[in-house]
């Protein structure tokens, strides 16, 4: 067994060789915890036993990944996620029954037949973990938000936008031109609103950038990026801000009413406490100063 603490949630892997599996990755060892008393939020059993429900799924959602494809089936009482590697020779199935325990302290137990022999096993593992983690922490006011996140004077600024908008480019400009900055995470940081002030946490999921910081800071602002032939930043109204944030949350958890309810509750808390901006920008130094001045001055 091996335990991680990700955004202060205890995650457990069970099964033969799980410690060796985690040790082979660059990202998970940073999140090991020796805390053996805390109750886990999620348990992932690498036991090879996945028995899909006998009933028909309520809904089936197929989608492509950069290195494979997925089918997610939604049942009344569980989810069944199947991932295929790029050459379709390997598949991993993840089954999540309904959580056990009190509503305030649920334990989500997943079972998987994860193939460690697949060439893309690390990529598949991360995808599977992101889904499992996001689902298990959904009603704990926790959300993984697709963004590149910078820390400046020990407060966080998250930059959101569709793929190719220049999130990473923009945070690189901060690192280069603004003092007292570091990158917290470049792809999948996690926010929690069940804190006195909303916080942003580093995670094991950082896209192509090896930036797996197990740290958290107070969240100062969130900024939606849009490419433009000029630099301009504007504070967004609640409705526009909500429209800017929702597409940066996991799409697979927006298909079902009860999941979307949880996402909306967390976003609602976030929007009432944290300013959201739209930054129309060029990929230049002035863009970094424009967003810095709006957020931190």
């Amino acid at each position, binding site marked *: 067994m091996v335990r991680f603490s990700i955004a202060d949630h205890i995650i457990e892997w069970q099964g033969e060789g799980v410690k060796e599996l985690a040790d082979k990755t660059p990202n998970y060892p940073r999140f090991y915890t020796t805390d053996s008393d805390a109750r886990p939020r999620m348990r992932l059993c690498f036991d090879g036993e996945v028995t899909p429900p006998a009933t028909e799924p309520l809904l089936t959602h197929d989608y492509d990944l950069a290195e494979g494809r997925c089918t997610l089936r939604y049942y009344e009482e569980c989810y069944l996620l199947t991932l295929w590697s790029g050459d379709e020779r390997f598949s991993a199935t993840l089954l999540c029954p309904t959580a056990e325990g009190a509503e305030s302290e649920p334990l989500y137990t997943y079972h998987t037949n994860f193939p460690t022999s697949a060439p893309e096993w690390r990529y598949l593992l991360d995808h599977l973990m992101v889904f499992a983690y996001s689902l298990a922490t959904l009603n704990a006011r926790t959300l993984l938000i697709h963004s590149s996140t910078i820390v400046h004077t020990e407060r966080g600024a998250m930059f959101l936008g569709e793929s190719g908008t220049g999130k990473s480019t923009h945070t690189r400009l901060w690192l280069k031109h603004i003092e007292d900055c570091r990158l917290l995470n470049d792809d999948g940081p996690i926010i929690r609103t069940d804190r006195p002030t909303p916080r942003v946490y580093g995670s094991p999921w950082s896209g192509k950038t090896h930036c797996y910081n197990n740290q958290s800071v107070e969240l100062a602002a969130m900024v939606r990026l849009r490419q433009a032939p000029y630099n301009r930043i504007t504070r967004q109204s609640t*409705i526009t801000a*909500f*429209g800017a944030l*929702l597409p940066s949350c996991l799409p697979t958890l927006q*298909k079902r009413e009860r999941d979307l309810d949880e996402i*909306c509750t967390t976003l*609602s808390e976030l929007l009432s406490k944290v300013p959201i901006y739209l930054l129309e920008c060029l990929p230049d130094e002035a863009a970094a100063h424009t967003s810095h001045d709006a957020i931190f001055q």
Partner: protein
Amino acid sequence: MRIKSEYKIRKIAGENVIVAAGATNVNTTSIISFNSTSVELWNALSGREFEVADVVAIIMGDYGQSEEVASRDAAAWVEKLREAKLIEE
């Protein structure tokens, strides 16, 4: 006509919104914002068959509008819902 059962009003930081998920992926999701009159009409008409005349009756009854004004507002409201694909005929 009927309000599609999969949609509901959610309260987001004090605003009333409907999240209308796209058919295939999230990029086509639209967010519709409702004022208090729209919320009242929505709640009164959800879960049942209705005609524009029912909307007119609510507006006349609850807001004391003339039939002429109420008819115009009701038609506009139904048209907005139709555009946002929140209604099935």
